[in-house]
């Protein structure tokens, strides 16, 4: 079933407490190459049949109005994945 992938990240200027906790834990496992981590969200919107322009437009609108909060987050990627 084809799906539309939406990636949402906290805006760069917003401190990411979860990312900070992860970056603090990584060196304990020997992963020392990553001075910074930011955690985001990935949504997969499944589509029955073909992904038309109209359906893609709906996905974009859903991403901006519900899947993300524009006060704190950016929609950084929307792409169609056809399996």
């Amino acid at each position: 079933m084809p799906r539309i992938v939406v990636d949402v990240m906290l805006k760069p200027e917003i401190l990411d407490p979860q990312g900070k906790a992860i970056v603090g834990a990584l060196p304990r496992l020997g992963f020392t190459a990553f001075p910074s981590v930011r955690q985001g969200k990935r949504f997969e919107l499944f589509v029955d049949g073909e992904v038309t322009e109209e359906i893609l437009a709906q996905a974009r609108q859903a991403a901006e109005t519900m899947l993300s909060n524009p006060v704190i987050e950016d929609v950084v990627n929307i792409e169609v994945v056809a399996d």
Partner: protein
Amino acid sequence: MTETPLIGGAFQAPVDSRLAGARIGVVTFPGTLDDRDAVRAVRLSGATAVELWHADTALADVDAVIIPGGFSYGDYLRAGAISRFAPLMAQIIDAANSDAKLPVLGICNGFQILTEAHLLPGSMIKNDHLKFLCRDQVLRVENNATAWTNAYAAGQDITVPLKNQDGQYIADEKTLDALEAEGRVAFRYVGRNPNGSRRNIAGISNAAGNVVGLMPHPEHAVETGYGPAHTGTDGLGFITSVLNTLLGDK
């Protein structure tokens, strides 16, 4: 009222038909926790509490609305993000923005719902220390001219419980400056900032002053014997304030 009723026990609210004529709605969403306490706070003040359900499509002639705390929809997506699209929220948003200026109070998750609904600016993210925090919290009343704060003195310190994990209030600098300039910071944390909130902001109002949101819980500080330090009833002022507003005493 001469005697303090037990929590959960029968109690006699002050009988005053003027107060009882004020209908204050309390909205329950799936996952709301503090609706019963909010209803009780309303009844203790002598007003009539009206229980509202998120899927309702009408406001049942209420004169004011409280959106209580909890974890509506399990905080899935973002705290308050799914509740914000409940059928009843459309009615609340319209009524709050209308000329009638329906008084709306959002407590904790209710505050998060109001920011998601764009009735209040900014947003809440995870506490800077990443932990759930529960404690009695001193707040300073910065603006006592709103529908929900007029029973307090400006600059008064009140103590109410605070309990949350996503309590860090954030907004961009321009929004924060505007809130300060317009006197829309309703409450500020006194002492150590409990969650990293910008400018120690605990609660804010909209421009008209009818919509107020805060993270701490006034509805848990309304009965002697059960509030902060076992005696605190500082939270009752919220209900007294809205009754002042509705009954035209202020």
